[in-house]
Each structure stands twice: as C-alpha cells, then as structure tokens.
C-alpha cells in the first residue's frame, strides 16, 4: 500500500499503536553477535526519514553502523552504552541544512532529530528489535572516529539489538500529574 493510498490512521489500530508505544523499553543488554538484517535497518532508517521536521527542513544525517569493530570503537567513546549492540545509528544534524531554520535552527534541529529517533525506536520495536537512545557519548570523539565533516554534528546514538534482558517499565508520572485540561491547574482525570 502506498502512503497516498493508506486510509486515515494508516490502517493501524489505535490500541495496537498505544501498546507498541507503551511496550517499547530502553534495552541495554543485547544478545551477543546477532545480526540485524539490512532490510530491517533500512525500514528503521526510513521511519526516521518520515519524522516531522520544522519547516520540513529535514536537517538530519543518519549513519548506520553494523561493522562490529566500528561498534566496539564507538562504545569506547560512549559511557552511556552498557553492552554490545548489534548496530548503532548515529543521528547527526547537518548544519548546512539546519541553518535554514534561522535563529531557531539549532533548537528545531534537535527536536527534529529526537522525533526521528522515536520513529526509529517504534519501527525497531515493531520488528522485534530492541533499542536505546544514548546521549552520553563523546561528540567530538565520535565525529573524529567516523570522519564527519565539520558541518555534521552527532547528537544522539541509537543502539539496536535483540534484547537479552528486558527491563521492567520504569515508573511514569500519572496523567493527572502531568496533564491539564483547558487551563493550567485543571487536572486531567
């Protein structure tokens, strides 16, 4: 089914989508040595590419790393990665594109990349692939390691793999605590 032909709601049930969202976990321990098919990596990247972006600037660059040796080296520069993922997507901002967003460009680009990351995580989850976004990594170190040009800045890593340990869902603040209706202070019940 093409994107244009898909029914409103994309043909996906609201219940299924909410279940997918709620059951996604940040997985930090992966099965060793299991390879993610390239076709699945392609779908995950595609989900990222279809994220919304401010002024539709799409300021992102995604680098999918599958080579075990490169993964090992990224991990050496990334204290936020706890075990060995099967793949890592390095999400970057291309300043030559984000500049078009004017003074808001930098802030917007971070939001755009974050939305792309969430899309990727959900797509991965739907494929049975676990993930974790990682902000704790050395930006300049990874930029040097991957030969990134000056205008391409890595901002987030997405580790991917098959879950060895599935963590319990971390507590969420209640809806009545975080959501208000019509005006601040009128709690959503």
């Amino acid at each position, binding site marked *: 089914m093409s994107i244009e032909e898909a029914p409103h709601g994309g043909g996906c049930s609201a219940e299924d989508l909410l279940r997918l969202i709620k059951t996604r976990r940040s997985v930090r321990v992966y099965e060793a040595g299991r390879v993610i098919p390239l076709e699945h990596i392609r779908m995950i990247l595609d989900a990222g590419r279809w994220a919304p972006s401010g002024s539709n600037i799409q300021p992102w660059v995604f680098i999918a790393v599958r080579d075990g040796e490169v993964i*090992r080296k990224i991990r*050496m*520069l990334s*204290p936020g990665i706890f075990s060995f993922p099967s793949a890592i997507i390095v999400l970057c901002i291309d300043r030559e594109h984000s500049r078009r967003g004017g003074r808001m460009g930098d802030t917007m680009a971070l939001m755009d990349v974050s939305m792309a990351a969430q899309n990727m995580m959900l797509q991965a989850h739907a494929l049975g692939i676990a993930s974790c976004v990682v902000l704790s*990594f*050395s930006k300049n*170190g990874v930029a040097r390691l991957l030969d990134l040009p000056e205008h391409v800045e890595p901002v987030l890593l997405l580790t991917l793999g098959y879950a060895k340990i599935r963590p319990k869902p971390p507590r969420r603040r209640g809806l009545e605590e975080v959501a208000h209706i019509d005006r601040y202070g009128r709690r959503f019940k």
Partner: protein
Amino acid sequence: MTGMGEGLSEELFELLSFMISSAQGLFEEPQSYGPLRLLEAAKRLVEIMEKHGLAGEAERRIRSLIEENIHLVLSSEEDFKAFVDKLVEELASIIASR
C-alpha cells in the same frame, strides 16, 4: 605483546577509554552519573580480572552487587545512594578480613 597479554591490554584500553570519555561527559551530566560511571568502571575492571583469572570471591561479590543495583540510578537517587553506602560497608568488611 602476544596471546593473552594482547587481549588483556586491549580490554584494559577499552576501560581506559571508558574512563576518559566519562570524564568529558560528566562536566554536563547529572551529579549522580559520577558515581554511576565509577561503579560501571569498577564492574568492567572486575569483568576483566575474572576473564584473566585474577578475581577472587570478594571481587565477584562486588561485581554482582553492582550489576544488581546499578539501575537504581534511574529510578531513585535516594535508593542508589543507599546502595553505594552499603557497597562501601561491604568493601570495608572485605578489606578488614584481608
């Protein structure tokens, strides 16, 4: 270097990289990430020691306590701190008995 020495030096180099990249990140990260990174480094050190037959019962116990409790940093800083206090008491008993 050859054989086991080469493996060991690469594993230690990975730990070294972890410590240096942690130092860079910690300027901007939450305060509790300092203890988190140090405990992670301690855990990785014991893993290397175990792999090369250098770890005893005490080191293994420390590693498993860290493994079981390190996640507390994300759920409750208070519980995480209480765990670190307990770990140091455990360490003190080990030191006393050596």
